[in-house]
């Protein structure tokens, strides 16, 4: 009888511990989300500040792009399609998209040809 009682007590104890861990995990997850949001905001902020300072950033190719195309390029680099066909869908890792590339880098060529 005693043995069974101890076992039940142990189970109660374990259950408490598990639920504690769960609460901690949830709290940590919230913290991580907050941090990554803050990080993203700061990255954008940093980029704006650098632009204000007139500092050079981005690739050689990017330098020749208009502001709106630079925004699209950033979205593309962040892993999203910017092309008409799949706009807003997530790009699979390390897979490039010919439609997006045409939109970002191709347009410029046509515009410069027209002028």
């Amino acid at each position, binding site marked *: 009888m005693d043995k069974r009682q101890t076992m039940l007590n142990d189970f109660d104890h374990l259950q408490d511990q598990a639920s504690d861990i769960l609460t901690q995990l949830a709290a940590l997850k919230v913290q991580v989300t907050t941090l990554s949001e803050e990080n993203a905001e700061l990255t954008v902020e940093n980029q704006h500040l650098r632009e204000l300072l007139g500092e050079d950033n981005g*690739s050689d190719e990017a330098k020749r792009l208009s502001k709106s195309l630079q925004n699209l390029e950033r979205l593309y680099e962040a892993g999203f399609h910017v092309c008409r*066909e799949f706009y807003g869908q997530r790009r699979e890792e390390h897979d*490039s998209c*010919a439609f997006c590339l*045409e939109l970002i*880098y*191709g347009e410029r060529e046509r515009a410069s040809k027209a002028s």
Partner: protein
Amino acid sequence: MKFTVNRQSFIKKLNDVSRAISTKTTIPILTGLKLVVTDNEITFTGSDTDISIETTLRANDDNAELTVEEPGNIVLPARFFSEIVKRLPEATMTIAVKEGFQANITSGAAAFTINGLDANNYPHLPEIESNDEVTLAGDVFRDIINTTVIAVSNQESRPILTGVHFTLAGDEFTAVATDSHRLSQRKVTLPNPASETHDVIIPGKSLVELSRMIGEEQQDVKMRLAENQVLFMLGDTAFYSRLLEGNYPDTSRLIPSESETTMEISAPALLAAIERASLLSHESRNNVVKLTLSDTATDATATIFGNSPDVGAVEENLSTLALDGNDLEISFNPDYLKDALRSFGQSQIKLSFTSALRPFTLVPSEDGENFIQLITPVRTF
């Protein structure tokens, strides 16, 4: 229904039709093979709703040794039926259907009785009334399919890209396929201009089956188009495929018109080098190889570089036939280049690059107009 036939001739037709019959279908009767027997021919039909194949065995074909005692029709379970027919002992066999859709198959001492279904319940094949017909040489058409179908997407989330886009205007027949990572386009000039212009998207899977059926026999393929179906006629065999609905993206704008750097090389040599480089890149998380081109006053070199942090690295200098233009460093998925290179066979090819961020193209050195493969690079910095 009762007939006697040469088994080999029958099996040949059976194999053709079996390509269309799938065991995984939502309509049970489609797991069956439909046989329609008239006084002087047997018509075989198989379908999985996407593709349907119909072929005829005629009594006036001497090899068929076909004698029909009584016309009729039946649907037989394709998998069992073809296994049975292939294992029968004698060179000829007799199939008789008496009542209740039970078929008696006899050959020599062996006799099978298998349960069939009422042929009247079998779905009707699409009717294609269009008289506008395009005739293509079998080997040319098979080549068009095999060189473009490599670039179709296998992702069902982009249904329209799982097909090959065919356009026909006058005597110009164009096939293009892309999965957005690479593109393959093939143009053929027809001997006789078509009277109407056509614009259709044929599922890649149907085309793969069709190209297997064209086989080595270089017979002509006749193509007829209707609203949502396409029909290919190969001799006595009719191949129907559903068309994909929707608008294919405009692909002409994807192909760069100018280039900064060009390289000429023999396709098999580059293929072998890429295969070596990809041995290691496959191990790495991002499957890319890097191509470095430099054209200085004294020396022009092209180097392939593959790297996998866990395993090691590979570097190889390519022996190019020609190399001009700006220096360039470009990374890409070697599997796409491998697929593209295989479609060029033994020929010499010309690669044209614009920048490290823009797609590059491969064309045969001799004929850069009618066949083009395009590959998008991967950004690695």
